[in-house]
């Protein structure tokens, strides 16, 4: 990679121009994006600038479950952006459809229409979360372009749901919680190569499972 290319890549990380697109959102995420521009968070610190034209933008923040009416327009606006371009889905709706899953007028999330580079979950994500999400994307980009040493991704083992307390809300009474033996803990946090094996699977005869079923029947 030449020096100039490296410089330009550095510049790309340092000065992302942000364009905001609302694809049928509830406004919650939108006003939080605007709130991120405000004195408290002020994402201009990182060089981000909200621009009004997709042609000037590097990053498009999309909010909302994509409604059928807006989907072609979203695609068109995405095509209008100049390369290199990245899309960030802001909010639960943009990530997966959120509360509007199951309706006839929405698609499930932004990634059904255009490729998405980063997801910011939350309903609505706080301004700080939006700034953090955008920053994470930039961090990832600088790793991708070799501007900083890429750190190996830390494997966080997925917790197995064995205890009753795992199913209860955190403020519930946890007197009857029994700590698991050390061997279980070691097993849980041991590095495992294949992640899919690590996924928790609850068998039908699991005691907690039965308990839940009974609870459901009572209702």
């Amino acid at each position: 990679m030449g020096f100039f290319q490296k410089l330009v890549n550095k510049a790309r990380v340092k000065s992302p121009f942000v364009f905001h697109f609302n694809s049928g959102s509830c406004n919650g995420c939108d006003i939080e994006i605007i709130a991120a521009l405000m004195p408290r968070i002020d994402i201009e610190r990182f060089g981000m600038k909200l621009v009004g034209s997709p042609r000037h933008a590097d990053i498009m923040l999309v909010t909302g479950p994509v409604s059928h009416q807006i989907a072609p327009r979203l695609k068109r606006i995405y095509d209008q952006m100049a390369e290199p371009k990245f899309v960030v889905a802001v909010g639960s709706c943009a990530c997966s459809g959120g509360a509007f899953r199951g309706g006839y007028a929405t698609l499930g999330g932004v990634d059904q229409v255009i490729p998405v580079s980063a997801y910011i979950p939350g309903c609505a994500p706080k301004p700080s979360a939006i700034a953090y999400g955008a920053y994470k994307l930039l961090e990832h980009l600088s790793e991708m372009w070799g501007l900083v040493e890429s750190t190996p991704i830390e494997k966080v083992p997925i917790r197995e749901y064995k205890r009753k307390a795992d199913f209860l809300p955190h403020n519930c009474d946890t007197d009857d919680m029994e700590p698991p033996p050390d061997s279980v803990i070691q097993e849980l946090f041991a590095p495992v190569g294949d992640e899919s094996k690590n996924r928790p699977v609850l068998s039908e005869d699991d005691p907690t499972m039965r308990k839940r079923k009974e609870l459901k029947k009572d209702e």
Partner: protein
Amino acid sequence: MSDTKADEITEHHPAPREGHEAEYELLDEMIGDLKDSLIEEGTYVHKQPRRIFVQVHPEKIRNVVQHMLDRYAMWQFITVSGRDLGDDLQACYHFVINDRKIAITFRLNVPRSKPEHPTISDLVPAAEFIENEVRELFGIVQVGHPNVRRIELPEDWPATEYPMRKDWEDPRGLMKKSRTTGRKEGV
């Protein structure tokens, strides 16, 4: 939903006369003036304060609204909500009489086979868009509507599908499609 008739009857909660004098006074005046336009069944004062529900002959709705506009200055229009009652479709016109602070609902049942009734958009300009919307979602046609056009649903939506009807079965799998997650192939 199957037992529509039972639902219809039990939905109505007429209020006692005590504590609802103003509402009953208005309703009595209306019944006196518009006797042949109203249907007795379904016309009552609701238990919730300041609410009147009136069942109207579908073809007489213009007379009723005109009379109310003239006599009570009922200028504040709220909305039209469609309903699917099974055999019938229902359009509820909600109004507020601001001087008496009472909300009135005019309900008109139209048969599912021929869902038509006269429009009131020329009397109440604010109703123009919501009537269009009811026509689009429920298929209740307002005869004489000044500005008929597809407004709400996507342009490629079939003209015979009314998504808010109870028997709409989602022939193109849209509701299932909205539950898909993850990156789609080819994007």
